[in-house]
């Protein structure tokens, strides 16, 4: 037998699951504050352990391929909440499509333009492009446009945290009171992290947030490759 043993590979899977469980526990202790993102905590723990044991990222990524393999079907599963909630909102579908498309394009362009204007490199700008969408789709889009998937994943999580913190205050200042609009904005600009902030407040906000997450995933996936060609 050559190469790393099965037991060694299973070790990093176990470490990843344990780190995620740790993240969930901390998140619960922090009363589900968006900053205490369980995934972010898990990522930090795993990076510290890799650093401590002098393990390369390539090695870690290969050993945890089992988790990454499930990411495909799990991303497909996001089609279920999208379909369930689309059925409820057929009447306002046109407004939804226009609002999501505008939010998607504007946030993508603002993110890329700000990074470029402040001296960020092209690869950073590329990783920034899909950051508004839910992290698994951001990772898939990063692969597609040649951005570093890990950077896009972390930017997507941080963007979601910013969205969760700002969504209610910003929209209140703008006199946007319609729960459908609040939910859609949270899902479109802050993905699942901002959505879980407004979803418990109102049924319509939850449904429109789910639609925002799904539709912005599709819109950004369609438009990011076009945008990537310009920058």
């Amino acid at each position, binding site marked *: 037998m050559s190469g790393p043993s099965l037991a060694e590979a299973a070790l990093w899977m176990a470490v*990843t699951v344990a780190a*995620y469980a740790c993240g969930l526990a901390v998140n619960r202790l922090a009363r589900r504050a968006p900053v205490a993102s*369980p995934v*972010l905590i898990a*990522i930090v723990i795993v990076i510290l352990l890799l*650093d401590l044991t002098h393990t390369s*990222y390539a090695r*870690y*990524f290969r050993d945890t391929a089992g*988790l990454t393999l*499930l990411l*495909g*079907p*799990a991303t*497909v599963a996001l*089609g*279920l909440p*999208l379909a369930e909630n*689309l*059925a*409820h909102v057929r009447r*306002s579908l046109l*407004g939804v499509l226009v*609002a999501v498309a505008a939010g998607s394009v*504007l946030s*993508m362009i*603002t*993110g890329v333009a*700000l*990074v470029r204007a*402040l*001296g960020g490199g092209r*690869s*950073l700008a590329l990783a*920034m492009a899909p950051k*508004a969408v839910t*992290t*698994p*789709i951001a*990772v*898939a889009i990063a*692969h597609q446009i040649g951005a*570093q998937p*890990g*950077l896009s*994943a*972390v930017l997507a999580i941080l*963007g979601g945290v*910013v*969205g969760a913190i*700002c969504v209610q205050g*910003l929209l209140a200042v*703008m006199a*946007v009171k*319609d729960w*459908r*609009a609040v939910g859609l*904005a949270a899902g*479109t*600009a802050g993905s699942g992290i901002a959505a879980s902030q407004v979803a418990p407040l109102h049924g319509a906000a939850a449904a429109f947030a789910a639609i925002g997450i799904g539709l912005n995933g599709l819109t950004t996936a369609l438009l990011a490759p076009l945008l990537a060609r310009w920058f």
Partner: protein
Amino acid sequence: MSDENRPQGRGPVQAVFALASAALGLAVLCVFAWLGGLIHGLGVALPAPVIGLALLATTLSLSELKAASASRVRPLAMLRRAMTPVSRTLIRHLGLLFVPAGVGVMTQWATLRSAWPAILTGLIGSTLVGLAATGWLMQALSQPRRPHGSGKP
């Protein structure tokens, strides 16, 4: 979550049935992911899982439309019932599945250290613009909800 309080199978027979149903549901998701990969391979410039997501959402929406008009769509309804619990479980723990990809940020340490002001500004600026544009447009474009029309929970 309401689906957690649903009565679960009590005996071993129900447990085996639930397991088989979850496996079938996962198989359905994998088939859609595979179809996504197939279409992606044909040159469609969308990520494979996103194509799978769109296909699944379309199929489910169509099955709903048909279910309202005809009763000949039992297989689709059964498929949907099989894939719903496993989908919800996967979505609830989606975060765990992208930890390995996210850890890849450790290879970008130099970028993070040198460009953090640009990253921070870009993150906050673009998120605020996205929230404002989507929220404002959605409110402006949707007619006010009729009070008697909102009987659904």
